[in-house]
């Protein structure tokens, strides 16, 4: 199949949606399909960009909800999107997060044909979505089939936009993790691994640190490998001096070293407090074969099959976490059993399995809209010159857009 993927967020800025689109693209390619990805790119001349990536320009940072979202929207982006759609001759167009005012939405407006849309967001920014729901109906009604990556994302969709979606989880490349060797010098004594932004409360490092005195009492030679970006001094300052010898701050870990990080511990710990719609880190640890201890968030319970493929403890309960970690560190038989159960459970999330199900959705979408993806021939916006962003082009673009519209409709 020829697939056109659209990623609304800047490719060279790390993020969950970007990683999902990249992995899906590579998985489709490895199954022998043809793939192009249209995405905003900050530095198109930087090395290391994949061959399937088509840069759509530089996104503009927009403050939203207390953080900054980088979006791409405007006549130039629209023109680039239209040109890409026209030249791609795609069998199916697969847009991601089309409710974000960015490329995916533009592609929905511009294209006709079989369109599949994947919804990632699990946070109900209800007012924004309701406004969006009405205003974007003309774009969303072109979507043939919808995919949600988690029950939470699906719920947001059903509640705020109406209609349903096929549930297809995020994937993990199991082969990249299975059988990884530990980082040099690890594990050195009973070791627990934590990964995540260390200064972001919802990743729950504070819960793990709160349980550290109890854990150190139960397992005197325990070590906790803390990996992830953030201010290490600030974290260490909150830990009593006598306990700091148990902590090893690893800092940011490269993608290549990730499997080795998971393999460096006897137990992987995910003490997240809320907001995790999907347990991708859990899946990676399970693929590596490291037993998981995680808070009983809905998403984690599902991935760990209600405790059959990992240990669950009540969210935020540091005492229960310390007890669970200590019990597992002292029980190699249980660890082996959990490692096997986790390794089996993760297969349902292997990218190859997930991608085959995505391909079934593509097939069904093509059956329901049996034409090639195309751009309805209106508007003469395709002759724009290549500039780096849309700033300053908005008004002339708008004028030409209006001219094109009224001219066509007058004749219709």
């Amino acid at each position: 199949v020829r697939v056109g993927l659209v990623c609304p967020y800047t490719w060279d800025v790390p993020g969950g949606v970007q990683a999902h689109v990249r992995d899906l693209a590579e998985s489709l390619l490895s199954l022998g399909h043809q793939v192009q990805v249209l995405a905003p790119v900050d530095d198109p001349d930087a090395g290391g960009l994949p061959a399937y990536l088509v840069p759509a320009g530089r996104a503009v940072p927009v403050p939203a909800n207390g953080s900054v979202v980088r979006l791409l929207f405007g006549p130039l982006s629209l023109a680039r999107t239209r040109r890409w759609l026209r030249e791609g001759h795609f069998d199916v167009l697969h847009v991601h997060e089309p409710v974000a005012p960015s490329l995916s939405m533009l592609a929905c407006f511009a294209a006709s044909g079989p369109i599949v849309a994947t919804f990632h967001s699990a946070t109900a920014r209800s007012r924004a979505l309701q406004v969006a729901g009405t205003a974007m109906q003309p774009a969303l009604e072109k979507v043939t089939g919808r995919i949600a990556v988690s029950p939470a994302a699906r719920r947001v969709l059903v509640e705020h936009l109406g209609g349903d979606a096929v549930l297809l989880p995020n994937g993990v490349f199991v082969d990249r993790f299975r059988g990884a060797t530990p980082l040099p010098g690890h594990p050195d004594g009973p070791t627990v691994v934590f990964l995540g932004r260390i200064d972001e409360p919802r990743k729950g490092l504070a819960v793990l640190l709160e349980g550290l005195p109890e854990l150190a009492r139960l397992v005197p030679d325990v070590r906790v490998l803390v990996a992830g970006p953030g201010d290490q001094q600030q974290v260490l300052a909150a830990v009593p001096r006598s306990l700091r010898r148990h902590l090893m701050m690893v800092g940011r870990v490269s993608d290549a070293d990730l499997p080795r990080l998971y393999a460096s511990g006897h137990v992987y710990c995910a003490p997240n407090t809320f907001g995790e719609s999907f347990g991708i880190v859990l899946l990676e640890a399970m693929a590596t074969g490291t037993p998981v201890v995680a808070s009983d968030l809905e998403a984690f319970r599902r991935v760990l099959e209600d405790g059959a493929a990992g240990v669950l403890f009540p969210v935020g309960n540091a005492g229960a976490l310390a007890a669970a970690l200590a019990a597992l560190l002292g029980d190699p038989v249980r660890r082996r059993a959990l490692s096997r159960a986790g390794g089996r459970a993760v297969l349902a999330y292997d990218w190859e399995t997930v991608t085959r199900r995505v391909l079934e959705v593509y097939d069904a979408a093509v059956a329901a809209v049996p034409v090639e993806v195309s751009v309805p021939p209106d508007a003469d916006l395709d002759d724009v010159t290549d500039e780096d962003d849309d700033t300053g082009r908005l008004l002339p673009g708008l004028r030409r857009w209006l001219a094109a519209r009224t001219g066509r409709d007058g004749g219709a």
Partner: protein
Amino acid sequence: VREVFLVVLLLVLTAVYVSWTAGRLDRMHARVDAAWAALDAALVRRAAAARALAGQLPDPRVARALAAAAQAALEAGEQGREAVENDLSTVLRTALPMAPEHSPQTRELQQAATRVGLARSFHNAAVKDTRALRSRRLPRALHLAGSRSMPHYFEIDDTALSQ
């Protein structure tokens, strides 16, 4: 002069909106028709696969029930199609777990059942969008949908049949 300009502007905007909405409705009805054709094909494929598998079931009572339900689904007209396909789904929920695991007929039936789930969800999404736009005030007042009949959802219980 300003009033005239405003009236003309309003007329132009209305004309643009009406023409655009009429185009949207056209596209959406075409989408419903194509989605129904795909769903129809998926249902036929599922019924044919069910009939082919019936002979391989170990329990003769379930085998007879499946063959009968599949035959009824293949022969059903537009009227009562939902009920007949729903019956087939019900029998399949009993029959599929006892089907031989590595038979190509089982695999085909599983794929066909998955496709029915997808096709039905795509069809009903198209119906929902079309009904939503048609029930808005302006399209209704101006009869923008013309003589086309209001599309209907296709409701059967196919839970636990899709993979």
